[in-house]
């Protein structure tokens, strides 16, 4: 006769164990864990922090003179200060004013839901003297979560805008869930939120499959796909980390602390989080600098194209067109050669021109796209359809319009396009017949 515990052991050790990474965790510590982490001054010493209102806080200051990659922290602060007014460009035109609060969470998992905790809430900002201050709130036991969230809310209340990396999809919803769990008001929902991931991806994403991407392939934060914060830190900020912990090991490391009470292994996580915050700040400054400087400040066609997109989505079509034109100029490929970047820039420029009622300019772009070798069928459809419209309604060249419409039909199967093109051809045929009739009437008359 087996005891309950033995029977359960038989069940939970059955061949389908829970997804965990046993190889990465050290063997579980003996169950005799410390009674109360709070009672241990060890924690303060190990992590260089202190208890404030029932919450463990670690505060750090990176002096303005210290370097982070290519630049000194103070330079980043100054740049951000000069360009802060442009932050709205990165929020699709929604107002976003300083003071900025850089936010980054470390969590117990990626799946979300009531059982996923933000065990470390990292906040960062620049001080008046150009130094970078981080304040990190660490959850040492579940019972303290409410106190932690209240401290975080106070922090957010002082901010003009939140700045994060993928925070709109991950950090903010996760924190919101924690606030809802404790029936606390989630103040973050009312704050402007600059998520740097999306513009950063436009500016700097390494094309898929490149060696660089393989080198940094990370199972963690798959959402950032080839554009992780660490990659950008190396490539754009020019900083190198040593002794960093890979993101996917962080939850296991935290659970190890929870079980053993030994805070020393958390030090790496706190440092990791602080570096993430500083890199986030540096990237934000770089992005805002680019948007402020405009096309003259770009390094390559890609940045110019991304710039155009940022302007366009903030409703600044004029500036967007300038950036797209710069992108086309900076393309190294000659006119007519296949170049994805050039295709993208021409196409976006065409649409931006049409929005600005610069129809002839738009038509130029479409024509150039059609000239390109290996132009993808969907672009060909768009271009021929746009040129058919242009010729029918603006240039009133029905013959040319019909030719383009026929080319749309040839450019592969796509039911919606096909139907529209057939409709157009039918109408053009009617118009052409009528025009012919009226011509012959004139002749007879």
């Amino acid at each position, binding site marked *: *006769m087996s005891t*309950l*515990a033995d*029977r*359960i*052991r*038989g*069940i*939970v*050790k*059955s*061949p*389908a*164990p*829970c*997804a*965990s*990474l046993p190889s990465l*965790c050290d063997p*579980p510590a003996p*169950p005799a*864990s*410390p*009674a*109360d*982490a709070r009672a241990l001054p060890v924690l303060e010493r190990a992590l260089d922090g202190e208890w404030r209102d029932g919450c463990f806080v670690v505060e750090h200051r990176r002096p303005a003179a210290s370097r982070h990659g290519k630049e000194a922290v103070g330079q980043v602060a100054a740049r951000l200060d000069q360009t802060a007014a442009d932050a709205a460009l990165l929020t699709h035109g929604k107002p976003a004013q300083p003071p900025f609060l850089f936010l980054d969470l470390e969590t*117990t*998992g*990626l*799946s*979300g*839901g*009531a*059982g*996923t905790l933000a065990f470390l809430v990292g906040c960062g900002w620049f001080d008046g003297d150009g130094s970078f201050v981080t304040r990190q709130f660490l959850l040492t*036991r*579940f*019972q303290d979560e409410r106190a932690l969230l209240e401290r975080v809310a106070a922090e957010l209340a002082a901010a003009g805008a939140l700045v994060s990396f993928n925070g709109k999809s991950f950090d903010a919803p996760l924190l919101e*869930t*924690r*606030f*809802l*769990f404790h*029936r606390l008001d989630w103040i973050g929902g009312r704050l402007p939120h600059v998520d740097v991931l999306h513009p950063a991806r436009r500016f700097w994403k390494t094309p898929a499959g490149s060696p660089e991407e393989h080198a940094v392939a990370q199972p963690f934060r798959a959402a950032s796909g080839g554009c992780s914060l660490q990659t950008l830190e190396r490539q754009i900020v020019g900083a190198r980390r040593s002794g960093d912990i890979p993101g996917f090991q962080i*939850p*296991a490391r935290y*659970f190890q602390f*929870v*079980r053993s009470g030994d805070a020393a292994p958390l030090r790496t996580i706190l440092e990791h989080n602080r570096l993430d915050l500083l890199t986030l700040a540096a990237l934000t400054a770089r992005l805002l600098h680019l948007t402020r400087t405009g096309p003259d400040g770009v390094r390559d066609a890609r940045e110019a194209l991304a710039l155009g997109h940022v302007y366009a989505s903030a409703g600044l079509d004029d500036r967007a067109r300038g950036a797209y034109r710069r992108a086309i100029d900076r393309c190294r490929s000659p006119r007519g050669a296949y170049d994805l970047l050039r295709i993208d820039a021409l196409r976006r420029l065409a649409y931006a021109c049409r929005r600005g009622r610069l129809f002839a300019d738009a038509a130029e772009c479409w024509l150039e796209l059609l000239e390109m070798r290996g132009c993808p069928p969907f672009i060909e459809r768009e271009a021929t359809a746009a040129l058919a419209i242009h010729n029918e309604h603006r240039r009133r060249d029905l013959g040319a319009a019909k030719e383009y419409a026929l080319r749309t039909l040839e450019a592969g199967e796509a039911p919606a396009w096909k139907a529209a093109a057939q409709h157009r051809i039918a109408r053009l045929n009617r118009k052409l017949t009528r025009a012919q009739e009226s011509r012959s009437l004139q002749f007879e008359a």
Partner: protein
Amino acid sequence: MLPATTSRADGALDAALERLGGRELDRPDTPDLPITAVRRLPAVTARFAPFPDALDERLKQALRARGVADLYTHQAQAIEHALAGRHTVVITPTASGKTLCYNAPVLDAILRDSSSRALYLFPTKALAQDQLAELQAMCETIASPRGGSEGPGPEIGAFTYDGDTPQDARRTIRARAHLVLSNPDMVHSGILPHHPRWAKLFENLRYVIIDELHAYRGVFGSHLCNVLRRLRRVCRHYGSNPVFLCSSATIANPRELAERLTEQPFELVDRSGAPRGEKFFVFVNPPVVNHQLGIRRSYLGEARRVASEFLKRNLQLIVFAQSRLATEILTTYLKDDFEATPGAPERIRGYRGGYLPLRRREIEKGLRDGLVRAVVSTNALELGIDIGALDVSVMAGYPGTIAATWQRAGRAGRRSGRSAAVLVASSAPLDQFVVRNPSYFFDASPERALIDPDNLHILVDHIKCATFELPFTPDEQFGRHDVHEILGVLSEQGLVHRADEQAPWTWTNESYPADAVSLRSISSDNFVVVDTTRETRVIGETDFTSGPSTLHPKAIYIVEGTLYQVERLDFDGRKAYVREIDCDYYTTAISYTKVTEIDLFAGSSSAGAELARPPLASKALRSHGEVHVVSRVVGFKKIKFYTNENVGSGDLDLPEQQMHTTSYWVTVPPEVMAQLPFAADDRRDGVVGLAFALKQVAQLLLMCDAHDIGISIDSGDQEIAAPGTIKPVKIFVYDNYPGGIGFSAPLYGMHDELLAATRKLIADCQCENGCPGCVGPVGDTGPFAKVVSLRILNLMLGPAEGIQAIVDTGEAAF
């Protein structure tokens, strides 16, 4: 004497029944004739009650606007209980207005306080969709401005939330839904683990509606109980304490089931006030065409004949078939008979899972409008989808349980006027038992729905999910077992942790535990079926337990009529690679099962069974306890479609499967075996036949499916048996799920009933030496299986009147 006919339809029904021979009333049951029984259920007049005073005036107005002037008594009763905050379960027949029993209190609560919320649980997504339409219509009536002084009523949001709900709609639903219509699976994996996002719902949850309560039995019910335990924890966290309103088809223990599922005390409302027309219930047994083999005429052909008699007379009917295949066959038959011109509106339709929703809606509407005259359906139309009331329900095959049979019969029957239900039995043992023992169906109470929420496999999974949702406080309980001991073991695995005895248990793992738990099975371990005919794709899955017997190499695997052959079974990778094949047979596995006793809960110990006992004192020894089951698939047979001929076989070498489960077993004492005047082989055949019949009856009594229980025989080492050393023989009926699902204790309790009913099944069977309807086909179990098994039962139970003659005949043959 029949009452005077009142309408043309009634006349047509009478004529059709007369033609079938089922109009003769007050006739005795005749087990040996094609019509074994006819019952007349008299008409019942409506009993009305006024709206309860406490009901909101706006709701009463809306109900009147929708044509509800009075309530039936059961509705008024249920609503009063609900308004008083008492958990209530309503059992009433089909089409008696049960939805109003729970919709009225829910809408009343929302009208009084617009922050109120309600959660509806349906066993299927289709049912939720069907109810949504009705609820939305009701909400519109409430919201629409009523002529004159008052402005528009409040907007009440009713939404379904299930796996089909688009991601971008989910946030809106969470914010705006007063009524959330969902299913247990979604609550388990999509709502509870995300409860903070649903804070508004849980803070204001006034009612939880569980429709079709009887669907939650066995594994599914045991899971639901745990989901509800988790739901109530989350409600406590947000400070709400919802009232449970349940509705159920007729089962023996609705209140007990509701109380076990929710662990709350319940009020039972079981007297319907709805009117009902007169109904005839006829049992049809296709005549025997081969006495020796006990083969009867095809029940599908018989069902077609019965349906035709009604269709000919322009009566509207539903035909229930037991499988998708049978549905398609019957639909084809009836179309051939009744659909004259191609292109004309289809009067005969098929209906089953797998049809597209749009097509289903069209058929349902056709039935309500009367354009569709007959629908042939699987059990898809058994539950409460609205198809209006029809004239006749024909069941091709016994639906498996008394409850389901009444549900299907209830699909025919208007509030006034006559209706009929006809059950056409197949040659399966269960069908034969029921159709030949009509009083078992008409007079006995229906089945008890059983669950075992404290099955450790199920419980442990839900404790993981519950810890993920909310930490366990030191004084909290969850189920019958000590939750803290279980959490202690989980902490050894690193899944949960607590700092000390006073601290809560918290989830300390990255995973999302609900993803690993399916409410429809015990273990999440399964085999996937990979089709390699063209490009590789997954076409199905099978739970781990039944994997080897259905997916062994060379097995024929059937999906929607397409046949596949298993080419390779990757046992460790849990994959079966199949390829489409064109053949005229299917396969059944031959498996070897050995059951070993581990722990005896009650009954005779194995040692005790060998002790000499006074003869004729209850010699049928019953036990139940924990057992270890080892099973291995050792071969397979190829069975030809339609003729069921055995056309080949093969050997297999597959790994063993083991599980701990609970079992009931009956011990045949050695002195009984010793008294049998038969050779050892024939004695063994008799035991095999007895086990075959026992399983069928156990299935009947337990209200379970064939694969829910397994059977195994332990005959000791009879080979070396010398006279005087005959060992006892044990027949195990075990729960076919790891940890057991609660069947063994009830079986132990029903021991006498089980053996008596088994004897009746075998003795009453008309075959000579055994057939699929009693001890199994004679070719499988041997020529003496029937007579030996009866002798064993007689020796154990003592002679019963009416049995002896048949046994004597059997002996004469010997």
